[in-house]
């Protein structure tokens, strides 16, 4: 409220009018789609909408039904296993690759290009390639067997108990390049003097990494983790392409549950409840991070 509308001054609303007009798409998107759409979905998750959204509230019924559904429980378990492992492995592989790349190596650009190209490919392509590589009849399993190790068994896509690891391998192939790039950028941001000091003190390299460099890169790690985590919750196309949720329901994920209930089973209420649970999951991850990142220090964007 800075402008106390002096007489003769143009109307507050008309000030900066062009800028406001230019921002209409952003305002509409933010308010109608992002805010309105989210509230709408959350509200309708408390109704018993079937084929069409209806406003007849049934309390938490949809959520009770959701958590009683084996398929949803399997989805959540898969998401947990996949999520935790993919965070750990992405960070470890990404950091190790970045550390190797940071040794003033030759052909750095070539290596970067190789590590990162899968990231340009879609999850559908990724899923289909790994479906083929993990094909039990022709893929890696059969090749290893033909080399003489005839009892070798590596058949994740047709073994319910380990199918999610098959998805994980594909996801890591696709995404670790990005993590490597982010980590490399973080490593390059470390002052050269730190390394010199460590060398003067005779600290071995791995110790410098573990106790000096990694703690210094905390912000990079956190940001990377948030990026990985918000990608994990959304995982959908990869599973659709690689396993279609199978065998049985062994590799179902929440995002697929939502889609199937909204657009195929025509049970909108379930879909809304499931998507609201996804929102809650993301909020659990993002809100603490946003608080740490923007709450304390103010204005860093």
């Amino acid at each position, binding site marked *: 409220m800075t402008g106390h509308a002096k007489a003769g001054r143009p109307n507050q609303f008309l000030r900066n009018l*062009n*800028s406001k007009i*230019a921002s209409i*798409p*952003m305002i509409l*998107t*933010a308010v*109608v*789609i*992002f*805010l*309105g*759409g*989210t509230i*709408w*979905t959350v509200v309708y998750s408390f109704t018993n909408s079937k084929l069409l959204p209806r406003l007849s509230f049934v309390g938490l019924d949809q959520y009770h039904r959701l958590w009683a559904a084996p398929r949803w429980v399997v989805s959540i378990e898969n998401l947990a296993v996949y999520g935790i492992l993919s965070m750990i492995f992405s960070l470890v592989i990404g950091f190790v690759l970045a550390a190797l790349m940071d*040794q003033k*190596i030759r052909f750095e650009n070539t290596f970067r*290009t190789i*590590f*990162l*190209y*899968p990231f*340009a*490919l*879609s999850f*559908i*392509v990724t899923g*289909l*390639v790994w*479906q*083929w*590589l993990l094909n039990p009849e*022709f893929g890696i399993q*059969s*090749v290893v067997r*033909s080399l003489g190790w005839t009892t070798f068994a590596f058949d994740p896509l047709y073994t319910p108990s380990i199918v999610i690891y098959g998805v994980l391998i594909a996801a890591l192939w696709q995404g670790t390049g*990005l993590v490597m*790039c*982010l980590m490399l*950028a973080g490593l390059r941001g470390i002052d050269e003097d730190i390394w010199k000091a460590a060398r003067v003190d005779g600290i071995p390299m791995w110790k410098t990494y573990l106790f000096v460099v990694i703690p210094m890169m905390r912000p990079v790690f956190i*940001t990377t983790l*948030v*990026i990985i985590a*918000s990608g994990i919750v*959304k995982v*959908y*196309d990869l599973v*659709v*392409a690689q396993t279609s949720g199978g065998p049985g329901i062994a590799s179902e994920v929440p995002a697929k549950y939502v*889609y199937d209930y*909204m657009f195929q089973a025509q049970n*909108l209420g379930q879909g809304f409840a499931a*998507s*609201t649970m*996804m*929102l809650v999951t993301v909020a659990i991850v*993002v809100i603490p991070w*946003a608080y740490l990142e923007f709450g304390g220090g103010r204005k860093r*964007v």
Partner: protein
Amino acid sequence: MSDTITLKNANGGAASTDKTLSGPSGRKPRRVISGRNIMLYGTLFVAAAYYLLPLYVMIVTSLKGMPEIRLGNIFSPPLEITFEPWVKAWATACTGLNCDGLSRGFWNSVRITVPSTILSIAIASVNGYALANWRFKGADFFFSILIIGAFIPYQVMIYPIVIVLREIGIYGTLSGLILVHSIFGMPILTLLFRNYFASLPVELFKAARIDGAGFWQIFLRIMLPMSLPIFVVAMILQITGIWNDFLFGVVFTRPEYYPMTVQLNNIVNSVQGVKEYNVNMAATILTGLVPLIVYFVSGRLFVRGIAAGAVKG
């Protein structure tokens, strides 16, 4: 770029001649083949092989005939190179709904990606410019919602959007999908442009205002010509992102408008008939080709794009 390098080299050369005159100094030259280097490059080469393997297998498989695939292993190079799988994948492979191959999906994807990229960048660049230079009261509030919205799972917003599109009468059409891509591209692109415009010297903007230029004039005459690199980065981000999209394509279009990724998935995962792995792999490469070309051509800009998109997200 090349100038500075030659300059550096020239300096270095001069310095080294000085050094030779004043006796040995500086670090002892390292041996190229040391245990450390073998470990280092060994690990890197193994990792590189792992990343390249799927691409290699894709290409090799797509060039073999089906009998050879049934006999041999997936890593062996083709004995007899055939391009038939590629032709079939492009023109006649069946999805269960139609037998047009990927060509139909390819053209749909082109018709989706080109307008979506242009529209989303147009909207976001103007938005970012307004946020950076013409901030009005409340602008930051809407911008914050926009950025937070980038973290909301799409599944939460899909159905409301279906209703909105249905009300406007473009649900199931290409224009509907283009609009959706523009909406979901907005957070990241607006952030990208806002940060870029904010980093330009503000004197430039002030000078233009004193000379009497308005909102659009400054944008078109001063900001646009100065921001070509960021537009390229945004284009890379959008082209690959939209081309690779699957979920929106499935949800917001009718089967005749399905993008290439959806068409590909339907071809490969259709249950009817004998699985033709070579055709599937040819189709997979074809679908991945556009983003791969963008990636290899753009090089460092791609890295910059994803870093800008990711780190600030």
